[in-house]
């Protein structure tokens, strides 16, 4: 028994050695260098359809093969951070543009200024300024906008007309007048506007329309006690206090499109993805009754948020020139128009809007107009967390637990606590 046991052990050892040698040999035997495999991570719907744009790229760039990996949005952030921690980042990636400051803080992204300078396709001045700006951190460019995402008013034309108005509001004052009139005409069981309490965006947009920034001293401290944010919060709360907006979250509305169709609310602040959804989900006889409009501001047309996704190159990539070529290709207006047809995503540069179906789309027109007035959220890695606190505190104020004064104080306290480490890092950087 002991003899056969020893022999068996030897066989196992030999097998293990063989496996080790083989895996080492195949590990060394990488594909030859004239063939570049470009690893491209993309999220959600974009990740599904971008593959259709790639054969043309591979035809015009022989030797480059693009491997697309799709990530679900819900897991993308976590997966990217894990990839950075494990040195397993892709060459090129789609990034939500609010994530860029965070990934810059992680030293994960490659500055793209020199590539843009040498490109004939990517023309800085053709891009909407607010969108371009979201990619600039500390004076350097870390991403090229791929598609844009901003929010504006979706409204029911028929219900607005029934309340006595023929055009959507241009200013805060007009918006209030219309909300009051609609509430009067639809009765107690329906509302004028839906501002879901689980989204920070509606309040953020009102705040971005103000002159004062949301954070001060290079993002060291919160600036919520400023007059601008106070005005925005008062305006926001006013819509709930007067009974124009129901204090609901999205999950309680269950089916936003149905409810919009039934006239449960007449105004809804949302993004471009809902153009397609409303076209698809509202019945045919309701299709003439809805429209989009740019956001009203404190005095005349106002700003909205500069959201969307950018394409970024990771600093650990060994295929940066090829990665840039892919960005360059995906930035061509013709390719972007095709991308719009596939996804409904709005292109980030004016040339892409000038032609094709998007130029004739009546629902997209308001977005085209709004994109000239978009502003980025504060560019600090902590912003998403601060925005979440903003939502939580605003929700408490909506439920009457906090006054405006208490809410803005509380928000500043929370923001300052979250920014403590940033202050320490900046202070240390200045010191040595």
């Amino acid at each position, binding site marked *: 028994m002991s003899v056969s046991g020893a022999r068996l052990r030897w066989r196992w050892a030999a097998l293990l050695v063989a496996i080790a040698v083989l895996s080492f040999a195949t590990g060394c035997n990488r594909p030859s260098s004239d063939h570049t495999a470009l690893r491209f991570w993309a999220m959600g719907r974009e990740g599904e359809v971008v593959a259709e744009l790639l054969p043309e790229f591979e035809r015009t760039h022989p030797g480059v093969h693009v491997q697309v990996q799709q990530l679900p949005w819900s897991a993308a952030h976590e997966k990217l951070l894990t990839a950075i*921690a494990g040195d397993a980042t892709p060459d090129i990636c789609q990034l939500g543009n609010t994530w860029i400051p965070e990934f810059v803080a*992680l*030293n994960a992204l490659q500055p793209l200024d020199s590539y843009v300078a040498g490109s004939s396709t990517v023309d800085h001045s053709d891009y909407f300024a607010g969108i371009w700006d979201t990619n600039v951190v500390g004076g350097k460019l870390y991403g090229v906008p791929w598609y844009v995402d901003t929010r504006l008013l979706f409204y029911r034309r028929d219900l607005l007309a029934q309340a006595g108005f023929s055009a959507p509001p241009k200013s805060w004052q007009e918006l209030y007048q219309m909300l009051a009139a609609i509430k009067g005409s639809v009765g107690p069981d329906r509302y004028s506007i839906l501002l879901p309490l689980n989204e920070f965006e509606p309040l953020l947009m009102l705040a971005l329309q103000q002159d004062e920034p949301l954070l001060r001293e290079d993002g060291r401290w919160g600036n919520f006690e400023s007059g601008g944010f106070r005005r925005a919060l008062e305006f926001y709360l006013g819509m709930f206090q007067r009974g124009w907006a129901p204090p609901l*979250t999205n999950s309680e509305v269950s089916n936003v499109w149905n409810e919009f169709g039934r006239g449960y609310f007449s105004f809804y602040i949302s993004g471009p993805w809902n153009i397609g959804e409303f076209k698809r989900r509202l019945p045919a006889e309701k299709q003439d009754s809805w429209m989009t409009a740019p956001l009203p501001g404190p005095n005349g047309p106002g700003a909205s948020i500069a959201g969307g996704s950018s394409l970024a190159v990771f600093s650990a990539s060994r295929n940066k020139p090829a990665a840039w070529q892919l960005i360059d290709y995906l930035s061509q207006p013709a390719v972007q128009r095709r991308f719009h047809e596939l996804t409904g995503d709005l292109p980030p540069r004016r040339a892409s809007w000038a032609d094709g179906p998007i130029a004739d789309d009546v629902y997209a027109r308001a977005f085209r107009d709004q994109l000239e007035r978009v502003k980025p959220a504060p560019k600090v890695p902590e912003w998403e967390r601060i925005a979440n606190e903003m939502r939580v505190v605003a*929700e408490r104020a909506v439920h009457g*637990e906090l006054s405006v004064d208490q809410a803005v104080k509380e928000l500043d306290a929370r923001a300052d606590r979250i920014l403590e*480490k940033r202050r320490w890092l900046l202070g240390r950087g200045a010191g040595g």
Partner: protein
Amino acid sequence: MRFERAAWWFVAPALLVIGVFFFLPVFAALLMSLTDFDIYALADLRNLRFVGLGNYVSLLQTPLFWQAFGNTLYFVVVGVPLSIGVSLGTALLLHSRLARFKAFFRTALFAPVVTTLVAVAVIWRYLFNTRYGLLNYALGSVGIQPIDWLGDPHWAMPAIIVFAVWKNFGYNMIILLAGLQSIPEELYEAARIDGASIWRQFRYVTLPMLAPILLMVSILTIAGYFQLFAEPYVMTQGGPLQSTVSVLYLMYEEGFKWWNLGSASAVAFVLFLVIFAITALQLRYTRQRAWT
């Protein structure tokens, strides 16, 4: 001596695995809870600060932690007795000699345990819907005003409790059913001869005989219910007004949403200490006050 050494060799593989995959990570997490590990530290370890018990101190000063702790306690204090009560009730019904189609009901009542939580949560969201939900429809038919189950901060936690009890009672039911079946029939026979009522039989025969199993079931259920996470995660995302944020949900947000792994580890250790203390108390209490 030789036997002892041989024994150590036998348990060594298991110890090694437990050491590497359990004690080492736990120890690392303990160390991490004494630092302010976050994305800046992920970028460059020089950005890591040793903060001692700072995470724990600031955690205990954070209102949201106490709110989460209160929410979790609410869930445990209401949910555990309710859950065990329902389990015991259904186990007694299934054990009853009057019950028909036992195998069918046993399977049907156990079914929620093996369903996918995310899928049934979608269905329960519809049941809880304020305007179209079955629950409000039923309440409406007896003249009760519709309740905004998942949107009202006072009702969200009860809704979560109802959902969690429905989802989990089948598991304990099976264990208790096994316990009931192992009680000798002679005891009931003797009790009946002595003229004991059904209630007295339950109180003085069933309960004492079930006591060890009830203790085990309650320890497992309390430890499990303290780790409330998935239900609020899929039903309410902690809302409305953070009324369904549990301690574990807070840890998840700290750690994996905001990537503050230092303070998230501190939350985990506080939760561990709480569960540990409660289990120890429970064991001591039942040892002192033996049934029968």
